[in-house]
């Protein structure tokens, strides 16, 4: 059985990802200190706000440990905010650094005439997944975008590079198809 190191930003609701991982047969270790950062794959969940998450990770000393783990080729998967944190910086909190595991930035969705946050189910390559976000990632290297979705503009929904994966939607909240997708993401990198 593979173990997932689930990173805690102190913003609540790790339980739903944990439940989904449990259903898929993964063991979970919650990461609150650098010493917890052991497991076959590191998962950055999709809860919270950029600024508060960056601060909490830094205060707990996890930021540096995450960066070095990624540099050493450790598999990393990010969901929603967790995907965004893989990048260098975000318009949500200018002046705070992301993990910089992937090169690029995070900016507010450009959806003229449409409401934000973008909330609800949208198709990604034909399968509906649940989205809840106002920001999207803009990778420096467009070839890391594996799939897109649309809300006013086309934005990256799935990012893949080496053993790094990220999804803008919430597979753990997207019914059965979401669970399969989460399983595939983890299987691809482990």
């Amino acid at each position, binding site marked *: 059985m593979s173990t997932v190191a689930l990173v805690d930003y102190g913003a*609540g609701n790790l339980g739903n990802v944990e439940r989904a991982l449990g259903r898929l047969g993964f063991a979970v270790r919650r990461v609150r200190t650098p010493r917890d950062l052991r497991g076959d794959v590191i998962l950055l969940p999709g809860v*919270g706000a950029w600024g508060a998450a960056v601060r909490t990770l830094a205060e707990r000393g996890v930021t540096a440990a995450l960066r070095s783990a990624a540099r050493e080729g450790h598999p990393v998967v990010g969901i929603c905010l967790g995907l965004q944190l893989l990048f260098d910086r975000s318009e949500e909190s200018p002046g705070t650094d992301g993990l910089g595991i992937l090169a690029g930035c995070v900016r507010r969705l450009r959806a003229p005439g449409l*409401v934000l946050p973008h*909330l*609800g189910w949208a198709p990604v390559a034909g399968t509906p997944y649940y989205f*809840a976000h*106002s920001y999207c990632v803009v990778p420096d290297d467009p070839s890391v975008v594996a799939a897109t979705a649309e809300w006013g503009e086309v934005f990256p929904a799935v990012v893949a590079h080496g053993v790094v994966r990220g999804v803008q939607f919430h597979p753990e*909240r997207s019914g059965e198809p979401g669970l399969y997708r989460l399983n595939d993401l983890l299987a691809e990198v482990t």
Partner: protein
Amino acid sequence: MSWPRILVCLDVAGGRVVKGTRFTDLKDQGDTVALASRYAEQGADELLFLDIEASVPVDGARATRLDWVHRVADELSIPFAVGGGVRSWEDALALLEAGADRVGIGSAATRDVGVLTSIAERAGAQAVILSLDALHIAPAACVATRRGGRDVTGHDALDLARRAVDAGAGEILLNVIDADGTRAGFDVAYTRQVADAVTVPVVASGGAGNPAHFLRVLTEGRANAALGAGLFHDGSHTVCQVKDYLISHGLEVRPC
């Protein structure tokens, strides 16, 4: 593009789903987890649980609530929100940690919209819903109320909605008290007024009686989502029937 959402609202008291007329004459409707699963299977896009006892301070009530939120989260793999008695970041965090994806804030926001900011800064705007119970004082004007319409505040509902969005709310759940429980249709005109006034999604609530009501409020009313309760609980309609109706009338939704 995301589809308009169909939500089901479940009023919860003592860990069980209840239904009453304007918060009185409560009747037991069944087990919270079983009903939640049923609506998820019917194709509901999201569920909203309203803890109607939460505004009444009872010893142990909070622990009871966290227990059923946990049990719902164990069962569901679609998103759900919990509202009722959320007054602080600590209240919100307890619900989020128990498994709620989003929280609804009502009465506390009519006293100080700052509570929305304190939650949004940590959990993100997408997790913060202003639960706005609006009561008409004129054909085109509503006031915000507390405790499900029992206490009228001095706030214009439209003005409160705008201030809530500025403070960090990521969605407005607009429940028009005058229509609530009537099953005569949503207040389409007022929903449109609110939707035109804010930049975040609006969930229309109050008055759902048949699939045509959903179509109207999601098109003419410009709501991004619409919520039903009684018409689903009494078995007269399923979520899937509503969705099939919408699709057959040219409005795309997530297929059930």
